[in-house]
C-alpha cells in the first residue's frame, strides 16, 4: 500500500440523517457548525479535526491505547472494511483514506506526476501510482471517506500551463473514478463517500474542473478536499453545502481558527505530531481560559525538555483529564525525553490529541451560542502567536520524515552512544605507517597490540 495516508477521527453527537448537514452558519463565507454522519460511525460534529496516521497508526499510539486513552470503547466489528480490520481501528472511528501524507514528502523529480499517475513516497523510494489502480484499490478497502486522487503539485510555484494540465488531469481522474464507482453498482448506503480534491489555486483558475464538479459529477461527489484556502475565496454557491476537509497544514491554533472562520469543516493538523516529537505538551483552550488580560501573552505549549520539570510532580497541564496527565507527571516525561525512551512521545501524543479535542469542542460550543468571533479575537490577545521553539531532540527520524538531498548527505540520526575506545581515536588521528614499519611503531600508532 506504499505510503497511503489514512486519517481517522473521533467524537460524538446525534442530529439529522443526511451524511452532512449544516446546523448553523453565518452568511456565505463564514464559520459553520455542522454534522457528519456515516453509517456505523460515531457522528462527527464539525468543525473538527482528524488525527493523522502513518501506516495505519497515529504515530506512537498503539491501537489499544488509541481506544483506551481517547475514550472509545470497542464495538464488535461488522467486517465491512478490510482496511479498518487490518489497521485495527475501532469501529466508531471515522476512517478517511487519501493518496499522500499530510504534509507530503516532496517528490525529487521536477514533474513527478504524469497524465495517468502520481508519484508517492513508499518504503522503497518514490513510485508512480496509477490513478486507475488507486480508484480500484480504495473502493476495495472501503474506508468511510475516500479522497479522490488529485494532481496536486506540492512545493513549487504553479505556472499557468501547469495549472491547465492539472485541471485536465483532475477532470479525467475524477470522472473515471466516478464511472468506476457507478459501474460497480454497490448498494449506495454501503460504500465510501467520495471527496474531490481541489488543487491549490482559486476556482477561477481551474474553471473547467469546477464546472465538472458543479455539473457532470455533482451528484457523485460528497465533499471537497481543500489544499489551500485560496480555493475557497471564490467557491461557487453550488459547492458550498459540501463538507470541506482541509489538508492545509495550519501551523498554529490561530491559523486553525482563521480557516474555520473561512468555512472549513474538518481539518488535519500536522503541528500536533510535530509538537509531540519536539517534546512540547500543548497548553491552550478555547475560549481562552483567563479571567483578565495578563501582562504577558500565554504560551501555547510547555517544553517538557526543560530541566525545571525534573522534580515536578505536576501533570503536564494543570487540570487536564487525559491519560498522560491523570497517570503521570512532568518529571517522568522529562526523564523519558532525556533518556530518549519511546514512552515520552506516547504520553505527549495522547495529551496533545486530547488538548485539540477540547479545543474543537470549545469552538463548536461558541459557534452554537454565537460568541465565536469575539472569542477568536480574545484568543489572539491572550496567547502568543507561535508555538514554543523546539529545544530538545525528537525521536529518530525515519525515511518519510525527511527529503533526501542526494548523495553524500550527513547522517540524519546521531549514533546513540560511542564506546570509549582510545585506540580507534588514535588510529583515526595518525598518519598511515610506512610499509616497512616495525612492530613497536605499529603499536604506538594504535594499529595492533604486541602479543607477549
Amino acid at each position: 500500500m506504499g505510503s497511503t495516508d489514512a486519517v481517522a477521527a473521533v467524537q460524538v453527537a446525534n442530529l439529522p440523517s443526511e451524511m452532512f448537514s449544516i446546523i448553523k452558519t453565518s452568511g456565505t463565507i463564514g464559520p459553520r457548525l455542522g454534522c457528519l454522519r456515516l453509517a456505523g460511525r460515531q457522528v462527527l460534529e464539525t468543525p473538527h479535526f482528524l488525527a493523522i496516521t502513518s501506516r495505519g497508526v497515529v504515530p506512537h499510539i498503539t491501537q489499544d491505547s488509541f481506544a483506551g486513552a481517547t475514550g472509545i470503547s470497542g464495538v464488535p466489528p461488522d467486517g465491512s472494511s478490510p482496511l479498518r480490520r487490518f489497521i485495527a481501528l475501532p469501529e466508531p472511528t471515522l476512517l478517511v483514506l487519501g493518496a499522500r501524507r499530510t504534509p507530503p514528502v516532496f517528490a525529487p523529480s521536477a514533474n513527478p506526476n504524469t497524465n495517468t499517475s502520481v508519484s508517492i513516497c513508499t518504503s522503497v523510494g518514490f513510485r508512480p501510482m496509477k490513478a486507475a489502480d488507486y480508484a480500484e484499490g480504495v473502493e476495495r478497502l472501503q474506508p468511510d471517506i475516500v479522497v479522490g486522487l488529485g494532481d496536486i503539485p506540492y512545493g513549487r510555484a504553479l505556472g499557468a500551463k501547469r495549472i491547465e494540465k492539472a485541471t485536465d488531469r483532475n477532470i479525467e481522474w475524477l470522472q473515471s473514478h466516478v464511472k468506476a464507482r457507478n459501474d460497480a453498482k454497490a448498494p449506495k448506503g454501503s460504500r465510501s463517500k467520495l471527496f474531490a480534491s481541489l488543487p491549490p489555486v482559486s476556482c477561477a483558475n481551474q474553471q473547467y474542473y469546477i464546472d465538472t464538479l458543479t455539473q457532470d459529477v455533482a451528484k457523485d461527489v460528497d465533499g471537497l478536499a481543500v489544499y489551500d484556502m485560496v480555493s475557497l475565496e471564490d467557491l461557487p454557491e453550488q459547492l458550498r453545502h459540501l463538507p470541506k476537509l482541509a489538508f492545509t497544514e495550519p501551523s498554529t491554533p490561530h491559523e486553525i481558527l482563521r480557516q474555520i472562520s473561512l468555512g472549513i469543516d474538518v481539518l488535519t493538523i500536522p503541528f500536533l505530531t510535530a509538537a509531540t516529537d519536539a517534546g512540547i505538551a500543548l497548553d491552550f483552550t478555547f475560549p481562552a481560559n483567563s479571567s483578565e488580560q495578563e501582562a504577558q501573552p500565554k504560551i501555547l505549549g510547555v517544553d517538557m525538555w526543560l530541566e525545571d520539570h525534573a522534580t515536578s510532580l505536576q501533570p503536564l497541564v494543570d487540570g487536564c483529564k487525559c491519560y498522560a496527565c491523570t497517570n503521570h507527571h512532568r518529571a517522568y516525561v522529562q526523564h523519558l525525553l532525556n533518556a530518549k525512551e519511546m514512552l515520552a512521545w506516547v504520553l505527549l501524543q495522547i495529551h496533545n490529541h486530547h488538548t485539540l479535542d477540547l479545543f474543537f469542542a470549545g469552538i463548536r460550543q461558541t459557534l452554537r451560542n454565537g460568541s465565536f468571533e469575539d472569542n477568536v479575537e480574545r484568543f489572539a490577545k491572550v496567547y502568543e502567536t507561535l508555538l514554543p521553539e523546539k529545544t530538545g531532540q525528537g525521536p529518530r527520524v525515519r525515511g518519510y520524515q525527511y527529503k533526501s538531498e542526494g548523495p553524500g548527505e550527513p547522517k540524519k540520526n546521531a549514533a546513540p552512544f560511542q564506546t570509549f575506545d582510545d585506540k580507534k581515536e588514535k588510529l583515526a588521528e595518525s598518519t598511515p605507517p610506512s610499509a616497512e614499519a616495525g612492530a613497536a611503531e605499529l603499536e604506538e600508532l594504535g594499529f595492533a597490540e604486541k602479543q607477549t
Partner: protein
Amino acid sequence: MFMPVATQASLKGLTPKQLEDTSCRLCLNNTYHLGLKPGQKTLDAIGGAHRLQSWPHNILTDSGGFQMVSLLKLSRVTEDGVRFLSPHDGSPMLLTPEHSISLQNSIGSDIIMQLDDVIATTSPDHERIKEAMYRSVRWLDRCIAAHEKPESQNLFCIIQGGLDLELRKECCAEMVARDTHGIAIGGLSGGEAKDAFCKVVGTCTQLLPERKPRYVMGVGYPEDILVCVALGADMFDCVWPTRTARFGNAVTVDGVFNLRHANYAYDFRPVEEGCKCTCCRPQEEGGLGITRAYIHHVAAKETAGAHLLSMHNVHYLLELMRKAREAIVEERYPAFLKEYFLKLYAGDKEKYPQWAVDALKGVGIDLLSV
C-alpha cells in the same frame, strides 16, 4: 517467574497500563541507568521509581555492576568499588557497594541486588575469577551494612565464581551464611557454553536453601528458562523479548520469526495463533486482531510496531511461565517440557540441543523419551 526489563523506568514504549495488561507484576529497572538519569537527587525529590513511572506493582533493581562491565570499556575494579569514566563528561567516577545500595534505597525498589564483581565467565584468568568471587562476598557484607531499609526492601546476594564449580560451591556456602532474602546466580549468560552454564545453575541450586527465591540473572531464551526451572531456579530477567521485538521478531511456541521478512507481507494470520495477548486476540474478543502482515507493514517503520510486538513477546514469556507453574503444581512438569520441545522443533528430536537433553537427564527428565 519472568521479569521484563524496563531499563530506564519505561518498558520500551509501553505505558504502565499496557505492561499491566500483559499480566506483568514485577519488572526490572537498572540502577546504573537511573543513577545517571534522572539521578539520585531527582529520585529522592520525586520519592522513588514507583512514583516516577506510576507503576503500582513490584520493581527489582540490579546493582549497576553488570552495566559497568557490559557498557564501559574503561572500567577497572578495585577493592573500593568499580572505577569508570562518566559517559557524560568523561570524568573518573567510583561506584562502591555503599553507593549502589544508597542509590537503590533512593529508587525504592522492592528487591535490590548487592554490588558484585562481575567478570566474563569466558575469562581465562582463573586467579581473577577467584578474586572476584571473594570480593563479591566481602562486598555483600558492606552492602548489608549500608542497607538502610531492610524492612521494606529485600536484598539479594549474588553467587559468583565463573564456571568453576568448586568456587561456586564455596561462594554458595559463604553467601547462604549471610542469610539474605533471596539468592541470585550471577555472572552467567555472557557467552559461555550452555552445558557449562547448566552445570553451574544445577550445582548452585542444590546447595541453596529450599525456602528462598533463586534468581538466575540475565537469562531470557524460553528454552534456557524452562531448563533452569527444571534445575530448580525461580526467577529470570532478560531484555531479549523487548529488544528482539524492536527488530521485528515475534516469539511464539513454534520459535522466533522475523516478521520483516517478505514472506509475511500477505500473511493475514495473527502473530501467534491462539495467543491471548491484546495484540493477537481477535477483535471479537476485545483484542486488536493484529496480523503478521500488519506487523510486517509497520515493524521498524513506526514506533507503534515495536510496541505491539513487545506486548506480544512479553505476554508470551509471562504466559509460558504461568503454564510452567501450572504444570509444576499439577506435578506434570516433565511432560510439559517434552511437549514444549516437541512443538518448538516441530517433532524433530534430532534438532534438540544436546546441552538441554544432557542437563535435563541430570535431573531425571529424559527429553527424548515419549
